[in-house]
Every structure is written in C-alpha cells, then in structure tokens.
C-alpha cells in the first residue's frame, strides 16, 4: 500500500518545515536507534517494572514511589543509572512533547495521574519546558472525568483534549485508513509519548499502545469492524504518528482482563506495574499475554476462544507494516 497525504501546497510546505527530518526514516537523530523496531538484527526490549508497595497501605498510588518505579523502568530499558540521562535519549531540549493518555475509562481505568506527573517531571529535568509538554486525549470533558485538570496557556504543562483545537481538515491516508488527525499531534508536538492503559477490549481483544492511537483521529468508530484489523496497524503507519512515537509507557497499575473498554471494577486487578518499550508492537504482545494469564487465573476462555484475539498485533508486525516485533523469540522481556 502506498502512503498518500492529501494536502494543499501550503500545508505541504508547512509540514516540510516541521517534519521532513522526522520523515527521513532514521529520524535524523541517534535518539531513536533503540526505537527502530524494524531493524532486523535487534531484539525489542520490553520492561515490566513492578512495585508491590506502589499504593502503600491505601488505594491511591504514591507519587514518590511512582517516580521511583518509572526511573527503574527507564534504567532497565536504557541500561543507564541516571534517570535524567535516560530521558535525554528520548527527548531533546526544544522538543514539544505530547503525552497521549487514555481517559475513556473514567477514574477507574485511565492513565494514572501520578505516572503522568512523574513523566512530566523527568521531561522537564531533561530540558523540556513545561509549556512544551501537552498531556492530551480526544476530549477535555473525558479527561476531567478521569481526574485531569484542563489547562491551556501560561507557562505550565498543557492539558487539554482535541475537542479544544479540532482535527486537521486534510485526511491522512494509509491503507484502510483515511482520517483527520488531532492538531495536538500535528501542530503542537514533534514527540509522542504513548501512555496507554492495559485492558481488555470487547471488539479488539485488547487495547494497549497501538489502539490508543484511535484517540488521535476524528473517526475511530469506522475502524472497529473485524476486530479493528487491519485498521489499528494501518493507523499506526501514518507518518505523523509513526515518526513521533518514541516511547510507550503503559500504565498497568490497574488493568482489566475482561469487559473493557469501559471500567468494570469486577474485572480489573491491581498489577502495580509499568510496561515500557520503544516498540509498541512488542509491548502490546506482552500486555496481551499478561491479560491472557489473568484470564486463565480467573477461569475465563482465552481471547482466541472468544473469537476476539487481537489479530491486529500480528498485522502491525507483518512485512507490510513492520511496526515492531510480535515474535516472542525476538522480544527481550525484562521483569524487575
């Protein structure tokens, strides 16, 4: 399939100014050497970092322990001790960094607030200005219901939904996908840190990193047939997404093994973990296996048994897409 972007000449020039370096494939920097999952020789690393005491004695995640958990996860991913140094491998001063959170599930199962704050803290220490960080999802109201505080303007971290800025007029096209992208993605940020949650999904099987990108487009409802396959993979092929996504930090503090995507307390569990990778496919594969293990513990059928295995993960890894690894022998799993 060819990639086409319908755009006016003016749009093209504007884009050229902002994103040609990113479109060059190598992304024009050494930042992403570990993030090029297509590189045939390398294994993709997925770190699963846990802290049994993440919530102390209560139910709320302790923010200091979260920061420390995030640091440990990043240390394991990049093999370096200095937390800030690790972040400098992901971002550079001058970057505008978007944190795409997932807030569909309300307070029960949305990207963890303490995690988002910890990421923002380290990003600033790595030289990103607070006002160049945007915490975002598709809808501000949804973000508020999940506990985020909408904030626009000023020098602080920005926090708002695409409803406030709208989607691009032009369609971004790849394969089965033709969608308008959030202007937060295209105009406000050159780096995307994907901060999904780990949960079961009624139609897609699971929703983790790759499917979180449904919150980036104006017409996600068009891409749910056939277990979201090949739509999820095609969507993640859009250069505007693919070239920006440098890191996935999946919030698995609370996860769901059935009944998603809406929050079902009876079907959730406290994993008290973060899953971190630069390969969204490998991360999704590992997350899927975690959900399957929990389903087995609970005596539920496999997702395959329920005819809703997330086939889109394999599609994302296939020869056409090469978005990452789904072969467990090519994934280096690090549990700490």
């Amino acid at each position, binding site marked *: 399939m060819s990639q086409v972007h319908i755009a006016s000449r003016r749009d093209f020039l504007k884009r050229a100014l902002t994103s040609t370096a990113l479109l060059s494939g190598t992304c024009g920097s050494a930042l992403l050497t570990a993030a090029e999952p297509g590189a045939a020789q390398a294994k993709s690393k997925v770190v699963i970092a846990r802290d049994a005491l993440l919530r102390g004695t209560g139910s709320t995640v302790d923010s200091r322990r979260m920061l420390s958990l995030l640091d440990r996860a990043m240390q394991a991913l990049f093999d370096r001790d200095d937390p800030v140094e690790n972040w400098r491998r992901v971002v550079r001063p001058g970057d505008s960094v978007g944190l795409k959170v997932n807030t569909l599930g309300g307070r029960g199962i949305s990207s963890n607030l303490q995690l988002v704050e910890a990421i923002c803290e380290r990003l600033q220490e790595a030289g990103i200005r607070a006002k160049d960080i945007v915490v975002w999802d598709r*809808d501000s109201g949804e973000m508020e219901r999940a506990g985020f505080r909408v904030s626009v303007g000023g020098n602080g971290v920005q*926090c708002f939904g695409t*409803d*406030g800025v*709208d989607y691009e007029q032009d369609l971004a096209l790849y394969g089965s996908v033709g969608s308008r992208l959030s202007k937060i993605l295209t105009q406000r940020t050159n780096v995307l840190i994907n901060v999904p949650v780990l949960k079961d999904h009624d139609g897609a099987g699971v929703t983790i990193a790759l499917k979180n990108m449904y919150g980036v487009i104006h017409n996600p*409802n068009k891409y749910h047939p056939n277990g979201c396959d090949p739509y999820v993979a095609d969507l993640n092929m859009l250069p505007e997404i693919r070239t920006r996504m440098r890191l996935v930090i999946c919030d698995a503090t609370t996860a769901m093994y059935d009944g998603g995507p*809406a929050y079902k307390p009876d079907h959730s569990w406290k994993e008290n973990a973060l899953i971190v990778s630069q390969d969204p496919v490998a991360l999704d594969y590992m997350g899927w296996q975690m959900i399957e293990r929990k389903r087995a513990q609970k005596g539920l059928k496999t997702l395959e048994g329920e005819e809703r295995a997330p086939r889109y993960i394999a599609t994302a890894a296939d020869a056409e897409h090469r978005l990452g690894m789904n072969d467990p022998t090519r994934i280096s799993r690090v549990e700490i």
Partner: protein
Amino acid sequence: MFRQSQVLEGESEEMHGARSQPGCGLDRRSFLKCAVASGAALGMGELAQPAVGSPSEVGQQKQDDARFIVEARFYEKQKNLRIKCKLCPRECVVGDRERGYCGVRENRGGTYYTLVHSRVCAAHVDPIEKKPLFHYLPGTVAFSLATAGCNVNCKFCQNWDISQTRPEQIPASYVPPQMVATLAKQNGCPTIAYTYSEPVIFSEYVMDAADAGHEAGIRSIVVSNGYIQEEALKAAYGKMDAVKIDLKSFSESYYRNVVSGQLKPVLESLVTLKKLGKWTEIVYLVVPTLNDSDAEFRGLAQWVKTNLGVDVPLHFTQFHPEYLLKNLPITPVSTLERAKAIADAEGLHYVYIGNVPGHPSQNTYCPKCRHMLVERVGFTASKVLIRKNGCPFCHQPIPGIWNA
C-alpha cells in the same frame, strides 16, 4: 486552569494565583510536578480559550448536550452492558461507553442513545429535482436537512465532512420536529427532505419530524442508501411520502470495498419499499472503472425490471472525484449514455442521466408516444405537461406523485 506550581489533591481554586511562581514555598519536586490531577477541583475546570497554536479554533460542542440525546429505537440489550444495534444490517455490538460504526449512537451503561435527535448540521431549501426525485411534485422545493454521521463510508462521498464525522465535531443547531415543520412552511416547502448524510442513522428524528410535518400538512421524503433493517425501514420510511435510494453498484465486492456495506440488504429494502407502495426512485452513481461495465448495467436493469417493475425511475449520475477517490476522472457522458441505452433496451421506462446540465435525458418522455412531458433546466422543472397523472397526448398513465 492550573499553573505550573500547583499541587495535587485538595487544593482550592483561590490558591492557584498565589502559587503561580516558583519560590513561594514549594519544594523543587512540587514545582516540577505538573499537577495534572484535578483533585477537588474536578468539575470546575473551565475550558479556557487557549493561546496561539493551540485551542484557538474551539469549534466543537460539548459532547453532552442533553437536548440531542434520546434513547435509540431498534436495539437489543445484551449481558455485560452490551447492546446490539438493530437499526442497520451491520448489527454493531457496542460495549458500554462505545459508539456504533455510525458514530452517532452511544452505549451509556447498557442503554443505547442517539446523539443526533434534532441536531441539524446542514439545512437548505433545495429544488426537489436536486435530490433527485423526478416524479414527485416537480418544480417544488424541499426543506432539506441532515445530522452528522453515516452507517457506511463511501470512498466517493461528496459530504464526508458531515457524514464521516461525530456530531460533537461539527457545529449544529437544535431544530426540534415542530420547528422543522414550521420552517418548511415558512420557506414555502411542501416537503421535508432528510438527506445529505444518511438518514438511516437519524431515524428517530426522521420519524418524529415526519409526524410533525404531516400534522402541519407538510410531506416528507428521504434520500438514503437503503442500508437498513426491515423493521426499521417499515417504521421510519413507512412514514415517508417518497423515497430515493442510492443503489451504489450491483456487485457485493464494490459494496464491500468502496462502500463498506452490503448490496443484498439494499436490494431487500427496495423490494420492501415496493411492497409498502412507497414512491421510490433509484440513483446509480457511475464511477469510472469501478461500477461501469455493461454487464453490471444490464444486471441492474434486469433486476429492477423483475423485482420492481419498469416504471421505477433509474438515474445514472455523474461521479466527481472526491474524498478517497480523487484519483479517478469525472464519469464521461458517453458512459452514462451507454448505461442508459442498456437500461432502455431492457425495457425500463424512465431512465435518466443526472449531474450533466442540459442533457436531454434529464427530461421525462412518454414511454408510449415519446412526447416530452417534463422539461428540466438545471435543477428545476421548466415545463410540466402531465395532466391527470398521464400523458396529455396519448393518455398513457405516468407514475409518480404529480400534484400537491
């Protein structure tokens, strides 16, 4: 609004300004922390108008405008708060907090809602010929309206900016059913037309507006893809005075690949409309290379003749490159003429060529004596010679709804 130095849970609104600068008693961590949590402030978060490059073009509506949200008809409740939509043949199974394929129906806690009742994103007074309906009150105008959304995704859609969008993504007005009838009357329209996007997905509104219209002496017509379940079709389109169906091709593969739908249910809808006795006209948009073979035209014409009869008007219309099919050319007029010749040869009485201004095949001719009975210029009927529902020259009955 929060600022950089705000802290977590429990903070009151008044404190925000006082802590807007670093160095007012916060430790370094609190300063770096972005305080994205709303804590006690949840709910007071005003959606401020943002600065440059960011949300300055706030055009979207709040998602929860309760006036537009009405429990949907045509669905079944399932376990685990799921629902199965019974409106269109797609039969979306929709989990809690999710929407169907159409994007305008949402499951909220196991109850399915339409989000677009009375939520009008486009309204115009159009000639009825523009729908096109050629055998229905020629020379009159229709009060034409649409909501966002569609249950298919045609790659050639001319109105994709409203059909392939969620209702909260485009501006809309609240136009309840009574107001539709009033506006139609005020604008001299004997007819309300549900059109532009896909009325299947706003069926509840169609039904209520049609009732309000009929009480006020205003008719209703629908311009639809016919991709709808039989029960819903009978309930919603049963209230229509005339129907125009876009039969987008005569092949399942085209429906699958170009429309994201299915042919068979559309053909079934056409048969059901015939049984209901609804005045129905068919439009076939001819897309170069994709649905323009002789065999397909012939198959279509034969199917119409066998299942609906020779008197159903069939319009072959010209494609213009749009949306996801910008790589194809405009349909050559010769292709449309070929389609018409094939359908004529199969014995259909009223085969038209559309979207080609000035073409003689946009006029209506008596199938018996060949006299021109309705002359059309642009989108209006400039001459209507039909008398007593027939040809004034040979008295051949001409089917249609000719008089208000």
